[in-house]
């Protein structure tokens, strides 16, 4: 530690820190633009010039290392003169369009100009003009003349997003920020550049000219999308969400949010919003009041319960629902005598049900990811499924950690990966067994007898050996299972082996939570094996169709592991009650639509993947007749005479369901009593399906976010095959093929992808283009069938857009 004096205040600061850091510690504000605590030092804007005693000229605080005994003056005559000089230069070329600038009112340049700028400019020559650039649907660069070349956006791309999509071309007066030949910025974190831009050069395209910043009310909220639970600031105007920006929480999302978190709000104001309860009568949908709608539902459920038995009632909910909603849903179901409730809609292996120590979770605090030095990431479309967790892993790798991947697809993670085992889905378990076996011999540790017996037969390949070697060299090992691994038909065994691998390295093992409330849903008891009334899991409810389904935010053709099976069950049911924020496909098969609200219009709680319960309040009032689902469930509970449904607030529901915010004892990944049986399963004819859920198709809200739907990541999925498979079929990239699974087929554009293992076909799930197909895993048939219906043309491969030939 060293001592430094800033404006007469003595501060103790770390060796190697800068004057800027020390000033922050002392609570002294130094004006700046290019400096950002999360980005590398650039020192190009010169706004932070300060006077340092014994230095011959002013020095930039952001790039000057603090030295013991240094005396710094940030507001001395010399410092202020330097700062004012810099300000005058910055304003020379800056347009005076603050009155129509979206950044007006929240602009760093505007604020600093108030303090250091002159009232009038001495500059009479021509101003620089920079032509607008087209960089995609999310970021507007229509006023690049406002740019002051701080390069925060460029450094963000290089250092945080991991891909340099913006850069500064040319030099001196001609320097300008642009993308490579007007290519679009496709990073899933790109929106953060808008927050970072200290002027109005990069602004939000969807928000453009919607409101002035001072007209907005700001409400804290939590992202309803991925498992991280990013903290949001929801900005509202006239009872409408008009913008979402990041709220800082160092332990969760730092100061970033993904584009999904940021731009999905457009879905909140979608014209597809369901605004009134609707009942289907004689094949026609009619709008009704809440009372008759709920009476109808209650009567229907009562009838089915008394005629066919309560076990014929089933409830499916997405883990994007709040804790309170899920808690009341399962309480209602159990109250009427059915245990058929599940949130694990895309899961296919339920053999660990009741055998896991607690709610499957990350196995460590999110912030600890940065400290890990070895990663084994199993079955994860990491960047697209968990944009910000991927970012943390990227930072760790940058600081020397090694990333090892076991997966069925080789998407670019935008970070160095030391070892990759890209294998067909049915070899996943075998590969983990190999890694475990190699690791055991590396560490010269004996495995538990049962495990030892199971892995004895496998032959260790070079790839597995290399991964084991990398892992054995680590002090802080993290074994992380992604969505793909959780949805795998052998998920329980994969979990078991992953746990063993982590145990051998004295590391930690966890699940990258699929959705905002995956952990919360488990804790709420929205699983068939919780509580005293037990029932069927999500797969059983479809394979043995029930007479009545309660859907909470579920779109079965998009949210389920096997949409074919799901739709058959829905169509055959006597009654389907869809509690949804949107008028969706349920219009075809449901009997009642109950308009419930999205996260922005209700209070609730999400428990993120590290087991952090984060409660939030509604940012705006419910739209029209839509109501929070917990209130709807409360009334249903009362109508059905289930006791204990007299809550006044969502907080009361949470208090009953969650008791305490310390959840440590309720989380647990340890699986006991599952047998390991390493046989490649489903090794029949045909190709094995590899399915991802495209980032902007993952939940109901983001599916209706119009700007996100125009991005490259939202392009209609194509079927990807290894080049050799294409040859066998006699087709080339860009051709249309017939993709068949189960009883249906769809037409998709085919795309060669030699990173895929031969014998597999990558076909995305969760997208309308593939919704007619069957299970996310299993065999799939591809033929050169002809159809008059052509698929739409754009498709994307691992973040790169490919145009159809």
């Amino acid at each position, binding site marked *: 530690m060293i001592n430094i004096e800033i404006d007469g205040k003595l501060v103790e600061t770390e060796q190697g820190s800068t004057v800027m850091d020390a000033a922050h510690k002392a609570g002294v504000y130094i004006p700046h633009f290019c400096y950002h605590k999360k980005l590398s030092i650039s020192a190009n804007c010169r706004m932070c010039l300060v006077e340092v005693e014994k230095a011959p000229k002013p020095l930039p605080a952001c790039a000057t290392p603090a030295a013991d005994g240094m005396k710094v003056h940030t507001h001395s005559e010399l410092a202020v003169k330097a700062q004012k000089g810099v300000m005058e230069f910055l304003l020379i070329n800056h347009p005076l369009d603050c009155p129509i600038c979206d950044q007006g009112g929240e602009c760093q340049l505007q604020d600093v100009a108030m303090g250091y700028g002159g009232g009038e400019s001495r500059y009479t020559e021509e101003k620089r003009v920079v032509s607008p650039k087209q960089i995609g649907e999310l970021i507007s660069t229509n006023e690049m003349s406002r740019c002051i070349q701080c390069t925060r956006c460029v450094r963000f791309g*290089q250092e945080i997003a991991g*891909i*340099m*999509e*913006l*850069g*500064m*071309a*040319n*030099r001196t007066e001609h320097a300008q920020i642009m*993308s*490579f*030949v007007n*290519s679009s910025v496709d990073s899933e974190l790109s929106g953060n550049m808008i927050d970072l831009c200290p002027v109005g050069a990069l602004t939000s395209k969807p928000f453009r000219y919607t409101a002035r910043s001072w007209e907005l009310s700001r409400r804290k909220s939590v992202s309803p999308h991925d498992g991280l639970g990013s903290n949001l600031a929801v900005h509202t105007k006239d009872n409408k969400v008009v913008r979402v920006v990041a709220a800082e929480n160092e332990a969760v999302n730092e100061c970033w949010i993904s584009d999904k978190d940021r731009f999905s709000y457009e879905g909140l104001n979608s014209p597809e919003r369901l605004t009134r309860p609707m009942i289907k009568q004689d094949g026609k949908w009619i709008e009704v009041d809440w009372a008759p709608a709920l009476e109808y539902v209650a009567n229907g459920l009562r009838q089915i319960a008394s005629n066919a038995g309560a076990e014929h009632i089933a409830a499916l909910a997405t883990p994007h629902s709040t804790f309170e909603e899920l808690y009341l849903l399962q309480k209602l179901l159990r109250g009427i005598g059915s245990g058929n409730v599940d949130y694990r809609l895309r899961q296919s292996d339920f053999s660990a049900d009741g055998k896991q120590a607690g709610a499957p979770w990350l196995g460590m605090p999110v912030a600890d990811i940065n400290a890990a030095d070895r990663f084994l990431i199993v079955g994860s479309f990491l960047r697209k499924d968990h944009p910000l967790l991927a970012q943390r892993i990227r930072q760790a790798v940058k600081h020397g950690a090694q990333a090892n991947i076991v997966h069925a697809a080789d998407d670019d993670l935008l970070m160095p990966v030391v070892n990759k085992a890209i294998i067909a889905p049915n070899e996943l378990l075998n590969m983990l067994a190999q890694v475990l076996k190699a690791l055991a011999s590396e560490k010269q540790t004996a495995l538990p007898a049962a495990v030892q017996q199971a892995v004895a037969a496998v032959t260790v390949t070079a790839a597995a050996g290399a991964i084991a070697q990398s892992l054995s060299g680590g002090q802080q090992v993290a074994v992380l299972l992604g969505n793909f691994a959780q949805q795998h038909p052998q998920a329980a065994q994969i979990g078991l082996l992953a746990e063993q691998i982590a145990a051998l390295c004295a590391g930690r093992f966890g699940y990258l939570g699929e959705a905002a409330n995956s952990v919360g849903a488990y804790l709420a008891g929205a699983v068939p094996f919780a509580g005293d009334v037990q029932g069927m899991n999500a797969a059983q409810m479809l394979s043995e169709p029930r007479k009545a389904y309660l859907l909470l935010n579920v779109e079965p053709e998009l949210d389920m592991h096997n949409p074919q099976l799901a739709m058959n069950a829905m169509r055959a049911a006597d009654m389907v009650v869809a509690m949804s924020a949107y008028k969706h496909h349920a219009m075809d098969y449901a009997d009642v639509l109950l308009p419930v609200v999205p996260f922005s219009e209700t209070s609730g709680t999400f428990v993120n993947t590290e087991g952090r319960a984060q409660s939030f309040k509604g940012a705006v009032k419910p739209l029209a007749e839509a109501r929070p689902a917990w209130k709807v469930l409360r009334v249903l509970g009362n109508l059905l005479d289930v006791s204990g449904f007299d809550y006044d607030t969502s907080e009361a529901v949470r208090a009953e369901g969650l008791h305490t915010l310390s959840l440590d004892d309720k989380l647990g990944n340890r699986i006991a009593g599952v047998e390991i049986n390493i046989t490649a399963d489903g090794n029949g004819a045909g190709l094995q399906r590899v399915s991802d859920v495209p980032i902007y198709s993952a939940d109901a809200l983001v599916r209706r976010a119009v700007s996100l739907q125009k991005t490259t990541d939202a392009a209609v999925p194509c079927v990807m095959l290894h080049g050799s498979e294409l040859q066998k079929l006699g087709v080339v990239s860009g051709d249309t093929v017939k993709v068949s699974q189960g009883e249906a087929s769809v037409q998709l554009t085919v795309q060669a992808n030699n990173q895929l293992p031969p014998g597999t076909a990558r076909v995305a799930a969760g997208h309308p283009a593939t919704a007619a197909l069957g299970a996310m895993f299993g065999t799939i048939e591809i033929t050169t069938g002809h159809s008059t219906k052509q698929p739409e043309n754009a498709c994307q491969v691992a973040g790169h857009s490919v145009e159809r030939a």
Partner: protein
Amino acid sequence: MLSAHIQEQINRELKKYPVDQKQSAVMSALRFVQDEKGWISTDDMSDVADFLGMANMAVLEVATFYHMYNLKPMGKTTITVCTNLSCTLCGAEETVAHLKVRLGIGLGEVTADGKFGLREGECMGACKDAPLFTINNKRLCGRLSNEKIDQILAELDKS
């Protein structure tokens, strides 16, 4: 695609740098491209980026920063006249004017037959020979007078 020759040249250059610092060779790589093709297209920049494992944009930054890279076809022979201070004091304006008349083109233009391109350049670090220009960035011609320019042009015309 980069030609085999360019790839070979870049590979030779790469030996000068640590294996994880391949981008160090970007300036040389762009030079090799220009030597062969006379200019550097954005496709070439992409190819260089792929070859060196860099972002396209990072290559474009370098290519647009240094004035010696031709970002459009500049003819068989590119004449780059220094117009920085020392050269201007010694008559660079006259050099430019004479070249414009002789070639019938302005700065940044190429003659119709594609033989000559004329560019304005930054200081070549040879102010003692001002005024001066370079031919294809390789040959430096200093202490220019109109007669000397005519002589050089005649010589270039022949080759």
